[in-house]
């Protein structure tokens, strides 16, 4: 009989219309890092929310140190020593770091907050675990990485011994991820127990002791990480074999498709320019990746490139045609397809049906309208073709309201639309963000297929693995500038990370003739 600190036995949690957790059992040992692996919608977050008291399970029981406990709300969880770092941080933006850490457990004397003591304790904790923070900084002014450290300190301040991390690495740079994994390991060695939710296999292999896999709400199994492989884990997660390396031939770049020259975009957040004189070319038949940490001007650059925002300087040529001043529609007609960064904000009208979204860029073509009246038969036929060809899965086919579809299938719909549209350049901005390995594999294949069809692809990505695997050429963007051009075949992730964090830059020709 093993000694478990937390046991979740036969947990079943239903939501209207779906069983999110179906008879799931998870046992956590004291002092281990236990990974919880599964695709999007597999029920990981639901299970953790049950443990943290945000949801109540219909069936099953939770035991702490062998005793049955009832967790009705996060306060109960807290009292049992369970803490959680949510995927989307729960911080008060206009409060200081210290105020956020003590929020809800403020030490006080007659109702007046005693900050001094709290501050001492917070600084002690931060030094002990190497979690560098500034207790007096406002949350809205600090980086995402530091916000996460604040969340971790919140748990430590409450003296939690069971720490849940919900996809903590999604927002971090490679260096920060490494740091975090080290810290998690440190917690485990000190006797704390860690539950680590993720769908990144590398991180599990690196840090976890054991791993529990969920698939579509069902328990698949728990394995010892030492005795398993990435391939084995991914098979458990998606139920089939997944290839991690992207199969592709060596690229055969052809003519220049896109040529941007000295693009400068003003920032909406600060007085400096968000994009500073960016110059590069994309050729037919190559995938050029614009890599960088979030917030280094990629978003603004793409907005200027696609016409969503105005730029202050520079020019863009698409297939030899100057489109600097063209409207979004004209750029689209000239051959630019765009998979937007935020699929909910830009890419889809969520209240529209799938078929209506499939023609979002083309509804005005004579194929789909006659004298201003939409040809619904043509729209239906066209979208059915795309749904079949790109395997877009939904409840009711073309008439499904897009809001009800899963993120992966929403993204597939956008990709189908943008790839099927006549184009010479595909601008794909973080096309795999938030998707699971199955969908990622699919999307990478589509990008390579687009390249092989002789189109130019500009991929903007934050994911290092994606950058290294998919692209033929890497441009690193840092603080609005291109600071390096790298060849994915000869460079390393570490080197790429150094460029992305601004620690290194090379003066390739691209940056030189910018000024």
């Amino acid at each position: 009989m093993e000694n478990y600190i937390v046991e979740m036995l036969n947990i079943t949690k239903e939501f209207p219309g779906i069983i999110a957790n179906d008879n799931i059992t998870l046992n956590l040992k004291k002092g281990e890092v236990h990974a919880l692996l599964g695709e999007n919608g597999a029920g990981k977050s639901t299970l953790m929310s049950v443990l943290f008291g945000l949801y109540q399970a219909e069936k099953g029981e939770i035991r702490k140190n062998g005793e049955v406990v009832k967790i009705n709300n996060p306060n109960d969880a807290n009292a049992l020593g369970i803490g959680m770092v949510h995927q989307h941080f729960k911080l008060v933006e206009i409060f200081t770091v210290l105020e956020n850490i003590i929020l809800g457990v403020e030490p006080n004397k007659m109702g007046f907050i005693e900050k001094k003591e709290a501050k001492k304790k917070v600084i002690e904790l931060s030094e002990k675990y190497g979690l560098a923070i500034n207790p007096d900084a406002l949350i809205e002014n600090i980086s995402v990485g530091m916000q996460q450290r604040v969340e971790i300190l919140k748990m430590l301040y409450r003296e939690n011994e069971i720490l849940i991390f919900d996809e903590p690495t999604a927002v971090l740079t490679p260096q920060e991820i490494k740091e975090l994994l080290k810290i998690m390991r440190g917690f485990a060695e000190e006797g704390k127990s860690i539950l680590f939710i993720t769908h990144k296999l590398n991180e599990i292999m690196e840090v976890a002791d054991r791993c529990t896999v969920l698939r579509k709400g069902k328990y698949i199994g728990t394995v010892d990480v030492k005795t398993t492989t990435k391939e084995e884990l991914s098979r458990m997660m998606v139920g089939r074999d997944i290839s991690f390396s992207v199969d592709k031939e060596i690229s055969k770049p052809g003519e220049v498709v896109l040529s941007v020259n000295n693009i400068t975009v003003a920032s909406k957040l600060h007085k400096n320019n968000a994009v500073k004189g960016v110059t590069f070319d994309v050729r037919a038949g190559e995938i050029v990746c614009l890599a960088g940490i979030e917030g280094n001007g990629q978003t603004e650059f793409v907005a200027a490139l696609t016409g969503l925002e105005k730029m202050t300087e520079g020019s863009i040529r698409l297939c030899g045609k100057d489109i600097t001043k063209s409207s979004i529609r004209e750029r689209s007609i000239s051959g630019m397809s765009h998979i937007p960064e935020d699929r909910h904000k830009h890419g889809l009208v969520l209240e529209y049906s799938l078929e209506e979204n499939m023609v979002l860029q083309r509804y005005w073509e004579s194929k789909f309208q006659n004298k201003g009246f939409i040809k619904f038969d043509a729209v239906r036929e066209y979208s059915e073709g795309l749904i079949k060809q790109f395997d877009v899965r939904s409840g009711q086919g073309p008439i499904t309201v897009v809001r009800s579809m899963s993120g992966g299938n929403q993204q597939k719909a956008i990709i189908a639309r943008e790839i099927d549209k006549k184009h010479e350049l595909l601008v794909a901005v973080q096309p795999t963000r938030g998707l699971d390995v199955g969908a990622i594999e699919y999307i990478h294949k589509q990008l390579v297929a687009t390249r092989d069809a002789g189109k130019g692809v500009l991929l903007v990505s934050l994911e290092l693995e994606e950058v290294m695997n998919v692209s033929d050429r890497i441009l690193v963007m840092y603080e609005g500038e291109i600071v390096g051009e790298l060849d994915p075949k000869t460079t390393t992730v570490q080197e790429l990370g150094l460029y992305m964090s601004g620690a290194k830059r090379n003066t390739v020709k691209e940056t030189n003739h910018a000024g």
Partner: protein
Amino acid sequence: MQDNKKSSQKSGFDFRSITKTKGFSAFTAALLAIALGLIFGLIVMTLANPSKAMAGFRYVLVGGFSRFGDVLYFATPILMTGLAVGFAFKMGLFNIGASGQYTMGMFFALYVGFMVELPAGLHWIVAILAGMIGGMIWGFIPGIFKALLNVNEVITSIMFNYIGMYLVDMWVQGNATMYIASKSRTNYLPSTVQIPSLGVQGSNVNLGIIFAILIAVTLFIVLQKTTFGYELKATGYNKYAADYAGMKGKRNVVVTMIIAGGLAGLGGAFAILAPSAIAGSSMTYEPINIIAANGFNGIAVALLGSSNPIGIIFSAIFISHIQRGGSLANLVGFKPEIIDVVIAVIIYFSAFAMIMNSALAKFVKSKFGKKVEMANANAEPTTTNKEAK
């Protein structure tokens, strides 16, 4: 289950597929809102006058039926202002300026009525069109402010309610042909400019209601079937996606506001050009510095009709119906204001009718439909339902 769905789609009738549509849920939500509003109205009436409450309530409920002509007559202007609000709302614009557009349309119609001489068959048609143009101008101004300077249309259109009302009052009072100072109202309009009556005894109901319904149906077709409607709704749902798709958002804002203004302007024209049941008289306008209530009632009509043109037809007739019933409740000693309270409650409930609707749906599902829903949800990853033609 899947086979069922397919065959039912072919045959074209299936209760379940109807109950799933958005229109149906909006309809049930409106019914629920009305029921709750009426119950609350009954409570208010009971508190006000317990012994007469049931008699009064009966008038409210069914009194309108005995005066159906009047119901339609009073429904005409609020149907138009309801369309003006609802149509703009489809694009995400809150056209609170229907009152100003309505008043402007009324003035333009009056002006043509008094100052322009035309043959009998043509006069009233030209006056109606003039009213539409007046409303269009008053819709265009907030629209262009919104499009070019990003000024919130709510603020401009509220201001233009006042500007329009004072301007019209000033113009009317300054025109000796139109205005009789001693009676502080406009003169009787010539009969050539009055819209032909539908000939219902004792009622002013006229061709205006037919036009209004035809316009509503046209708008429904525009919204559902045309590329313009597609763009308009896309912009209303998600203006970022509309931008991304290259739709001309600014132009569409202006066009939508012009159309909305034109609709409200038509409402004003229909109201003032209605024939009078008393020979030799006509509708009149009193320039007494009050913003037209029909404009604001349009907001209520649009809300209750979920901004759907067809829904707005029914909600306008319904609101007119209980208003008529309310004035009949006078007979047993109730003030007509009580009806305004009941209408207000209905609107209040319809504002969060969608929430109640989902609560009701949840209840129904938990009672009857659990298995069906479950099958649907689980079918998601495995079925693509390609044949759903």
